[in-house]
């Protein structure tokens, strides 16, 4: 059973990574097309010297980190609060956020921003994109953290408080340590959603807040460009290295 499971997992990982591997392979192809014509680094060089791409990648990173931080913090606290005592309004609002298709989130936020900006003479920009990302990430954070909270016995916190701890202390020293896997999973999910978002971002981005998905969509719409392949290979490698390093540091 154990071996079958491992074999199966290997299969699924193959399914998940095969498209990436093929992309990476063809990013080194000298030719633009599916016919292999020799090894070449020209597409990678082009990607790294493209000012627009680099700016977009930086924007995506900044937006992703900011939105993840805000959404995870707000969402974790919110999930805890809802776990202690339900709130019908909050639950209703969260449900609505959950069932909203991305395009509707984007359009509604655009309309909202336009309306607000009429009074304050502002423009679309990084702040509007971060706000939009927090808006659609929050419910997923709450969902994941809530799933984790449900596995915790409320009696534990009560016991701590009976022993003299304040509410905040009970949270910090009993519940929070238990929650970390859930919070990490939620933060990962939020960052993934934010970094990868095209639909909502394309609607609420200003002139100066182009993100990586937007640039890639524009490039890819014009046909298969190995520069796109090169970019994704670079990102995957970069992030992979980052993760390995952080894992090494954590276990050290």
């Amino acid at each position, binding site marked *: 059973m154990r071996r079958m499971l491992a074999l199966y997992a290997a299969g699924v990982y193959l399914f998940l990574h095969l498209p990436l591997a093929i992309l990476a392979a063809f990013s080194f192809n000298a030719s633009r097309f599916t016919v292999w014509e020799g090894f070449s680094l020209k597409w990678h060089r082009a990607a790294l010297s493209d000012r627009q791409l680099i700016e977009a990648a930086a924007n995506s990173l900044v937006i992703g980190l900011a939105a993840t931080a805000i959404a995870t913090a707000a969402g974790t606290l919110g999930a805890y609060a809802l776990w202690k005592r339900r709130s019908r309004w909050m639950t209703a609002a969260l449900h609505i956020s959950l069932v909203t298709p991305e395009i509707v989130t984007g359009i509604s936020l655009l309309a909202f921003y336009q309306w607000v900006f009429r009074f304050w003479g502002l423009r679309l920009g990084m702040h509007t994109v971060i706000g939009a990302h927090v808006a659609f990430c929050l419910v997923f954070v709450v969902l994941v953290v809530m799933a984790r909270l449900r596995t915790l016995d409320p009696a534990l916190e009560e016991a701590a408080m009976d022993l003299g701890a304040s509410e905040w202390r009970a949270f910090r020293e009993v519940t929070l340590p238990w929650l970390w896997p859930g919070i990490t999973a939620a933060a990962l999910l939020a960052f993934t959603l934010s970094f990868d978002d095209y639909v909502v971002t394309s609607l609420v981005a200003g002139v100066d807040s182009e993100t990586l998905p937007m640039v*890639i969509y524009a490039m890819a719409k014009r046909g298969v460009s190995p520069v796109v392949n090169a970019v994704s290979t670079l990102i995957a490698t970069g992030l992979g290295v980052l993760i390995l390093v952080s894992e090494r540091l954590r*276990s050290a």
Partner: protein
Amino acid sequence: MRTIRNIFLAPSALVMLLLVAAPMAIVLYYSLLTRGVYGGVEWPLTLENWRRLADPLYLHILARTAALAAAATALCLVLGFPLALFISRAGPRKNLYLYLVILPFWTSFLVRTYAWMFLLRETGVINAALMGLGLIREPLGMLYTPGAVLVGLVYGHLPFMVLPLYAALERMDRSLLEAAADLGARPWQAALRVLVPLAAPGIRAGSVLVFIPCLGAYLTPDLLGGSKTVMAGNLIQNQFTQARDWPFGSAAALALMAIILTLLVAWVRREKEPLL
């Protein structure tokens, strides 16, 4: 007892009010207006957009959307459960395996979708391999079909099934399975009767996290369906761009959300614990 809980709730509540409730109210308002000729909205108020939704043409699209979303969710569950199980048992390498699931998804959804187009084309890698092995003589027309859209949906949503499943399975007490084995259950029996019910919160969360985005999906059917496999998300998006009919798009969006919400509430009501 109240203060800390209310303080904790405040940030989320603010986000919900400003960035979810208010925009939704505006969409509702738009659905009652008339379309501007070149996009946007203008007066007068009308119920025409809502009346137009009853056309069987649009109900047909809804049915197709629901079928594809359900199929994608089922496939994600079947594919994702063993994987989540494997990761939850992986000991110290747990986080690594988790990151491996998510890593492809930091390289841009669009690029991955284009990778699938690359693979599925008549002159693509999969056909080349199949023909090379002599299994087929003519290339298979895989791209721009509902099947391609399904593959894309499953591929794009798998981690949203795996992560909640993992969160639930990770907590599980291994000794319960041992107890079942001691009592004579075969591994698959133990899995079905012990594992699955214990992982139920994760299954519920994962299914919701896959089914609902799939219902509103638009990029995947757009790129892999070639505007021929039109799902509800495509229809709505189209109203805000090519078809320039914001009010109708707003009405269609709200109708879709109402249907989804009804299903969600009906499904959740049967469960012991609420979803949120």
